[in-house]
């Protein structure tokens, strides 16, 4: 009898939500308080990010700056022909956003490629290509320190709700949802790493594991690989919508691009 009671108590403990100071208020809610992943990396990596002369991500920002003012095609306009770089401040903080022209949610990479095809009459840059990563890094770096705030109302609402469902749904061989780690276990250890809240504010970021700069979608694919789930191609709507959800979740966190992460 005692044993049955003990087993029942154990089962009840398993079923109860895990108490954690970092847990979201409700499933699919925002973590309170939001905490940048910068607080979870080793001090040496944080120092690397803080120093522009040492931050390896600045290599891509510099290259992006060169691409920004380079004429596209034989004699096409450069990005800088129409846009002052300073005018890009805040752009990365309010994307992804609904685009009426595209009829879907677009992220910064989509916006750059849309400008390339419609205004510069050039073929789009491939997702994950070094040029697109560099341009994205350059544009995002203009927003450094600007708090993230995206709009998830109106036409973006269905996409946002799809992404929230994606975030909270268990998937893959490991049967984990994003929320299983980044809400329920945030701040705890996974081997010698501290599990972050999974915020997008450092991206595009230089990852030591990649030995290169990479987009947020590349990072999301890496997370899906880790839980042995299906990895959609970079640029897939499901990943772009997830970016929107993550930006909503990181509301108020400053853009850190180019970040440095392990």
């Amino acid at each position, binding site marked *: 009898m005692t044993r049955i009671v003990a087993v029942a108590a154990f089962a009840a403990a398993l079923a109860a939500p895990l108490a954690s100071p970092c847990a979201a208020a409700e499933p699919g809610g925002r973590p309170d308080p939001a905490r940048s992943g910068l607080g979870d990396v080793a001090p040496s990596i944080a120092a690397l990010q803080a120093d*522009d*002369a*040492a931050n*390896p991500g*600045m*290599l891509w920002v*510099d*290259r992006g700056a*060169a691409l920004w003012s380079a004429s596209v095609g034989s004699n096409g306009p450069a990005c800088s022909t129409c846009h002052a770089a300073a005018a890009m401040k805040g752009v990365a903080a309010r994307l992804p956003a609904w685009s009426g022209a595209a009829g879907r949610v677009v992220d910064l990479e989509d916006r750059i490629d849309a400008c390339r095809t419609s205004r510069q009459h050039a073929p789009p840059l491939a997702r994950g290509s*070094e040029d697109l990563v560099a341009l994205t890094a350059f544009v995002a770096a203009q927003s450094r320190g600007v708090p993230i705030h995206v709009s998830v109302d109106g036409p973006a609402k269905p996409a946002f709700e799809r992404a929230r469902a994606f975030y909270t749904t268990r998937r893959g061989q490991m049967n984990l949802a994003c929320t299983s780690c980044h809400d329920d276990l945030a701040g705890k250890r996974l081997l010698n790493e501290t599990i972050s809240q999974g915020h997008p504010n450092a991206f595009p970021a230089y990852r030591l594991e990649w*030995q*290169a700069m990479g987009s947020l979608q590349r990072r999301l694919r890496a997370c899906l690989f880790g839980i042995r789930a299906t990895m959609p191609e970079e640029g897939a709507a499901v990943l772009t919508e997830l970016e929107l959800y993550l930006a909503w979740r990181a509301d108020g966190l400053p853009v850190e691009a180019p970040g440095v992460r392990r």
Partner: protein
Amino acid sequence: MAFARIVVPPRVARGEAFEVRVSIRHPMETGFRVDDVGKSIPRNTLREVVVRYGDAIVLRASLGSGIAANPYLRFFVTARESGPLAVEWVDDAGEPGTVRADVNVA
């Protein structure tokens, strides 16, 4: 396309040692790795890095397979007179690269 950054102080005093920081985008492939089908990936590291200040060579380095991708070099040079500081390199594939900065001696 090779790309690199160089950072020097905006102004330095004559006779003073100033800090130079260089980072170079390079895979620094060791030659010990194999690809997904087991074929060995040829070694490609920066064979030689040469730093010229004016006409003089102030640093010459051979970076081998022990240096990680995107090498970051930090060193000090004594300021003599205003002039270009040029970093030149060539990798195992024979691909050359260069990055330069102007040193302003006050």
